[in-house]
């Protein structure tokens, strides 16, 4: 197997709390930065590149360097929603390879739960109010859930996918959440009514939020913070844990077109690029950290990444195939996912953090001898326009 050992993730951190009132997104990023650097055995003085999708315009993005006291040689504020952090890894890898920087810091912090932001069922998020396409969509009251549901409804129509098949994704993810004390505490903190094992029947009998998606197919809205540190092979040799190598990356944007196929999401382009670059086949992947804003996000990504064929995601998810303790498929979202562990609005950084834990042998649903992980972020709105970033990670 081809191994690209040029750039590695050497530090990773996920804030344990899901309710962090009295903290600002900037403060949370400072905490996450310090902890991820400590995890790597590095300090703020080592950082010469920063990556952040911090929302709030030019001032807040420039503010991060000053706030952290970093003098970066490279700054990247790519903001593509929840996939931003996978894009950041791709860009940081390129910059490190090109010799533009040595230690890249990717941070995230958000307090959407404490700020009572209604992400899923509130007004559809606006990714720039100067986008004329959104001016054609705003009047219809499409919530975020409903936007993703447009894809789920079409997938069911075209391929015969069932609510029960989609529910399998929630069931496997809840099983993983129950092994993760941070996820258990998260469901308690966020006052989930039912916090135990769930069945397919539980999922499909939970309230429909936007046809055909049920409540137990929708991610939580939490507070949260996290960070990862990337560096070159030379620096990686002296860090605390074994390096998790970045083997391949892919980026893509998807959008609705006249006569287009809404089920062929951007994952079907970012995935093959990343897998091709890494020289890895989907069946070699042990861990699939796939952005689970909703079950349909995962189902279409499984197809796009090549774990199964187009339209086959429903059958693929059946029978507990995606559980951490079953052979025949990758272990999905072993931390409990955005569904049941951590989703402050843009979960992409936590996909990377849990992938690193698995490849270091530190997960609470540890797959024995996990060697290859994929982190696949999805941001924006699956039914209209979205970004997808795929990162393949591996350990020797």
């Amino acid at each position, binding site marked *: 197997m081809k191994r690209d050992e040029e750039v590695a993730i050497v530090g990773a951190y996920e804030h344990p709390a899901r309710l962090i009132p009295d903290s600002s997104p900037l403060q949370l990023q400072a905490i996450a930065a310090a902890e991820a650097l400590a995890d790597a055995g590095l300090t703020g003085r080592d950082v010469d590149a920063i990556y952040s999708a911090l929302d709030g315009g030019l001032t807040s993005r420039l503010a991060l360097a000053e706030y952290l006291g970093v003098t970066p040689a490279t700054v990247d504020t790519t903001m593509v929603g929840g996939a931003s952090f996978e894009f950041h890894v791709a860009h940081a890898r390129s910059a490190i390879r090109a010799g533009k920087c040595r230690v890249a810091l990717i941070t995230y912090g958000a307090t959407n739960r404490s700020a009572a932001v*209604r992400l899923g*069922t*509130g*007004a559809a998020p606006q990714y720039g109010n100067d986008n*004329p*396409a959104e*001016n*054609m*969509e*705003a*009047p*219809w*009251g*499409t*919530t975020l*859930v*409903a*936007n993703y*549901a*447009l*894809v*789920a*409804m*079409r997938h069911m*129509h075209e391929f015969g996918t069932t609510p029960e098949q989609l529910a399998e994704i929630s069931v496997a993810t809840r099983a993983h959440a129950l092994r993760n004390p941070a996820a258990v505490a998260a469901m308690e903190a966020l006052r989930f009514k039912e916090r135990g094992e769930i069945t397919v029947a539980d999922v499909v009998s939970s*309230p*429909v*939020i*936007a*046809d*055909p*998606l049920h409540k137990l197919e929708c991610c939580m809205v939490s507070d949260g913070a996290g960070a990862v540190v990337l560096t070159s092979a030379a620096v990686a040799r002296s860090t605390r844990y074994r390096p998790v190598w970045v083997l391949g990356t892919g980026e893509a944007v998807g959008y*609705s*077109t*006249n*006569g*287009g196929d*809404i089920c062929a999401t951007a994952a079907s382009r970012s995935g093959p690029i990343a897998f091709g670059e890494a020289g890895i086949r989907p069946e070699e992947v042990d861990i699939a950290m796939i952005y689970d804003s909703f079950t349909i996000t995962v189902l279409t990504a499984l197809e796009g990444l090549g774990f199964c064929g187009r339209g086959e995601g429903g059958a693929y998810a059946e029978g507990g195939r995606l559980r951490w303790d079953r052979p025949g498929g990758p272990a999905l979202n072993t931390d409990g996912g955005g569904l049941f562990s951590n989703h402050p609005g843009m979960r992409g950084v936590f996909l990377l953090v849990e992938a690193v834990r698995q490849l270091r042998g530190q997960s609470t649903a540890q797959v024995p001898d996990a060697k290859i992980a994929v982190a696949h972020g999805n941001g924006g709105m699956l*039914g*209209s326009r979205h970004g997808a970033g795929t990162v393949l990670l591996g350990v020797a």
Partner: protein
Amino acid sequence: MDQATTPQPDLRWHPGLLPDPIDLDTAPFWAAAAQRRLTYQTCDACGAVVFFPRRHCPECLGRALTWHDSAGLGSVYTFSVVRASRDPRFADRVPYCVALIDLDEGFRMMSSVVDTDVNTIAIGQRVQLGWARSGDALLPVFRPEPA
């Protein structure tokens, strides 16, 4: 076909989010909508059907485009029924439909299927244009085509 030949009462929508009438790309669309005309564009150079409205063709980047009136007939490409909304502008409107409609002229637009039981809406269903008043704006919505 002239959609205005059979006047219909305005359909019920809601005083929700209104389009920005001076958005530079889509203003002509909303100006036509105010006259109960559903419009789309084609590219003079390559013939592509262009929607949402723009000043260029996304196929060839040509900047000569021609506006057309749609006959307002199409089918449901996909849809959802919003059953929970915490957006105060829509919360008391649930359940309501959001849909992507494939118009027979070859363009796809987001809209709603109204004037029907939301539980009977189906992908592939034939629909026809109607107009819903929302504040000062007229919004193009769709209702099932009579059998």
